[in-house]
């Protein structure tokens, strides 16, 4: 007679940072559950094994990740948990430093080291599970990460250091995952990547997002498909044509522009100009008349003068975006902007961020009144 050994172990996966990291956590959870582990996510319930999936994006995010690791390291040294593992972007970027500074952690892993993490827990990496992710979001929408990494060379951005070069997932594997999600009752897919518009360049030698979208739209049960993080430079405009034709694709586009002053865009190495950005937004609105456009801006970049910042304010007023987010510049080592002087006072950065949000607030209010 076969007897099944019941594990006493319970794993709590803590996710910090963005939705892309959340997808990685969902993959960890799926693999562990397939190996008979009892797994909880971001929970306050007791568990004897903790996995912290960190973020290393900017200073504030790094601080939150470090505080979380230290908090569990303390609990571990008091005997409250048995094992503590750290993975994700911060761990990828600062593994050596972290091993020295917080040695209570049993092991640190990089962003592409899931099999290694599983091996520590005597769990097998099961390739057949790709496309069968357990989701942590409400039961009716799921994030789908269509590619990993980024080949762009924006001067301020540390993400390529942590996530590596751009690698697309195949259309077949994504459609399989979408079908699985639809069978669970999921109605909305939120497509994410570091950069959506590069999709397919590695696998199919062309920008293949429109092909992927057509394939996903054919999946029965999926009613909404939403696009996040499309860069403006060399933007493949066919995406907008597909959006206009396919009713399942939400008339929504998240297109981070970062700035609107030509000189700042150049220092940021964005490979685009204010005028090109303006034309792209106008083209999007002409092609999909009711499109909602979300963007994010970065204020306080090295050398950002009053005049350059005013250019950005004017642009925000003029373009009347539907949704706007603002980041304050964070000086990140090993990026090319790190060679510049981080010369904008933190108070001025905050003031500029507030100024953009004030401008946008009155625009948002107008938009909503029209609805």
């Amino acid at each position: 007679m076969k007897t099944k050994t019941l594990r006493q172990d319970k794993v709590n996966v803590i996710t910090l940072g963005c939705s892309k990291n959340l997808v990685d956590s969902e993959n960890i959870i799926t693999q562990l559950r397939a190996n008979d582990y009892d797994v909880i996510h971001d929970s306050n319930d007791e568990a004897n094994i903790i996995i912290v999936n960190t973020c290393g994006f900017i200073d504030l995010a790094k601080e939150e990740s470090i505080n979380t690791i230290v908090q569990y390291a303390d609990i571990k040294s008091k005997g409250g948990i048995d094992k503590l593992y750290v993975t994700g972007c911060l761990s990828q970027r600062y593994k050596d430093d972290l091993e020295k500074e917080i040695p209570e952690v049993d092991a640190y892993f990089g962003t592409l080291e899931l099999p290694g993490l599983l091996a520590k827990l005597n769990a097998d990496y099961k390739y057949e599970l790709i496309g069968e992710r357990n989701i942590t979001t409400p039961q009716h929408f799921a994030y789908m990460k269509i590619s990993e990494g980024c080949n762009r060379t924006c001067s301020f951005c540390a993400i390529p250091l942590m996530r590596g070069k751009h690698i697309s997932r195949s259309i077949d594997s994504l459609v399989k995952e979408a079908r699985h999600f639809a069978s669970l009752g999921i109605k909305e897919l939120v497509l994410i990547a570091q950069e959506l518009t590069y999709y397919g360049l590695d696998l199919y030698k062309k920008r293949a997002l429109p092909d992927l979208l057509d394939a996903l739209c054919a999946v029965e049960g999926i009613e909404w498909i939403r696009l996040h993080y499309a860069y403006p430079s060399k933007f493949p405009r066919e995406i907008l044509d597909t959006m206009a034709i396919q009713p399942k694709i939400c008339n929504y586009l998240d297109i981070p522009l970062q700035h609107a002053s030509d000189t700042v865009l150049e220092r940021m190495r964005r490979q685009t100009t204010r005028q090109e950005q303006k034309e792209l937004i106008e083209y999007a609105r002409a092609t999909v008349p009711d499109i909602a456009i979300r963007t994010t801006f970065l204020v306080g970049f090295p050398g950002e003068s009053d005049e350059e910042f005013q250019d950005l304010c004017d642009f925000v007023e003029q373009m009347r975006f539907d949704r706007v987010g603002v980041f304050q510049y964070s000086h990140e080592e090993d990026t090319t902007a790190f060679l510049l002087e981080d010369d904008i006072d933190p108070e001025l950065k905050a003031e500029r961020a507030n100024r953009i949000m004030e401008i946008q607030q009155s625009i948002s209010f107008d938009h909503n009144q029209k609805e």
Partner: protein
Amino acid sequence: MITIKKNRSEVKVLFDRKEGEYFVGRTEYDSPEVDNEVLVAAKDHFVRLGDFALVEITDAEEYDLFGKIII
């Protein structure tokens, strides 16, 4: 290519959660966690979470819309 300008006073809403006295959902113009939400009073209507419903917008603040369910 056919593009029909939607009448934005009637919007299709996907309901994400119940919070206090409201069902909270989103239109296609809003992404989870970062964008605006549509609130419908739970005392007036019942919706199943994860269902779509057609909502008439009755009031608006900077970031949230209030409405009632039509279908």
